[in-house]
């Protein structure tokens, strides 16, 4: 994004190789991106607590800071000073590495996300495939957490989570194919650029399939079987404490944020909105938080599914629907 001619000139004047310049800029971007992720997690957790409190006629956090706005900072400090417990039965290395393997792919997904006209870190030609494939590696971390903990709750939670994420991967990706057909590109910025009419209007079936399978991907209610508090304690991260627990938590909210941003890019017109072009990122943020609000609304309204219902919905309803959507899109495009 920033490999402008001026910088390249500067580099060649001082004898700095291009790859070193690229790497240095990439480090800055990576740290900035992490900061954005952290801020989004702080806002999302605060919103989650307040919205859930509203839905249940409570106040939510009120004591730390104005209307509890500093509650999460207090929680972070608490988690930072908590003891990092390794259960004596746990497989030490798998147990240690699991939070890293879960968190890093979730964070890497943002690499290709365009938030404004031309504002994107790396605009890959296969950006759409990348953003579907890389965060999916997080499943490996969840399975590692389950197996490494040597705990029955953790292992059941991780297997359920893996089965669910794997099943909903298919309808989620197939629902996007209609969009790729209309936009004629798998590059995220071109997909947004082609959206003169929002794709939620042109592809309503795809939107429903995508939203439902996204909810399953990020383990949000009604698909929160991997961590059903009432039966599995805390699911795959039952044995974790302190900072490692925090990174699982972090990965979950980064995934929620990533899901909302991807929905915005694919269906809600990305940075498009009234007003001049430099307002793009603001429109993008507004749409993203509207999407997060919808996800939380669903989360606090619906009860949890049973595992057989989850599997049935994925394979017998959403997958055929996604394929029919591809068919309809193709037919309509042939006729027009």
């Amino acid at each position, binding site marked *: 994004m920033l*490999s402008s001619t001026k910088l390249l000139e500067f580099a060649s004047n001082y004898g700095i190789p291009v*790859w070193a310049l*690229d*790497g240095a800029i*990439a*480090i800055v*971007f*990576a*740290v900035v991106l*992490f900061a954005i992720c952290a801020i989004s997690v702080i806002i999302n957790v605060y919103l989650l607590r307040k919205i859930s409190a509203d839905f249940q006629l409570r106040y939510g956090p009120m004591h730390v800071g104005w209307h509890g706005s500093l509650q999460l900072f207090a929680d972070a400090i608490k988690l930072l*000073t*908590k*003891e*990092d*417990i*390794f*259960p*004596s*039965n746990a497989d030490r290395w798998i147990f240690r590495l699991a939070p*890293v393997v879960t968190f*890093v792919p979730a*964070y890497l997904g943002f*690499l290709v996300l365009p938030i404004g006209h031309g504002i994107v*870190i790396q605009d890959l030609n296969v950006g*759409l*495939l990348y953003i579907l494939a890389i965060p999916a590696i997080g499943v490996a971390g969840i399975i590692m957490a389950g*197996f490494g*903990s*040597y*705990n*029955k709750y953790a*292992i059941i939670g991780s297997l359920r989570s893996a*089965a669910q994420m*794997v*099943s909903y*991967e*298919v309808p989620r*990706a*197939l629902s996007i194919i209609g969009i*790729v*057909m209309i936009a*004629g590109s*798998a590059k995220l910025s071109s997909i947004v650029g082609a959206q003169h009419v929002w794709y939620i209007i042109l592809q309503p079936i795809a939107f429903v399939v995508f939203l439902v399978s996204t909810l399953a991907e990020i383990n949000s209610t009604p698909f929160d079987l991997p961590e059903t508090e009432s039966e599995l304690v805390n699911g795959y991260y*039952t044995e974790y404490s*302190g*900072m*490692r627990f*925090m*990174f699982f938590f972090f990965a979950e909210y980064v995934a929620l944020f990533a899901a909302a941003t991807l929905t915005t890019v694919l269906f809600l017109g990305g940075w498009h909105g009234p007003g001049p072009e430099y307002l793009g990122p603001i429109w993008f943020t507004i749409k993203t938080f509207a999407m997060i609000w919808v996800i939380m609304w669903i989360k606090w309204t619906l009860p949890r599914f049973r595992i*057989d219902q989850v*599997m*049935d919905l994925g394979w*017998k309803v959403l*997958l055929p629907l996604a*394929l029919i959507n*591809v*068919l309809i899109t*193709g037919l309509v*495009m*042939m006729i027009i």
Partner: protein
Amino acid sequence: MVSEIIYFSVFTIVGVAIVAIAIGLARILSTRKPTKAKLETYECGNLNVTGDPRIQFKIHYYIFALLLVLFDVEMIFVFPWAVVFKALGLFAFVEMLVFIAILLLGLYYAWRKGVLKWT
């Protein structure tokens, strides 16, 4: 292309480094008093762990993983087709219909065989 690879690797390294730094910081700041009871595996109500958690789990998990592989490979094929769909026209559309129909036949077979049923 090179720039993309550099960015991807740098982002991966920075991501791992941030997690490592945070966990290292927590190690300095946190208390460490492991006792035998604290390091026990968490279980409902029992002081001693009963049985082995690494049991043989349901065969269904494998079947769903196999189905995922099948349909994911299909997706990798459909994506490039969708990108150039406008230019290819009717012939490509019919071709893809045949391809998807064969796959749907497979799904129908799995469905009738009852492997999609979670018992």
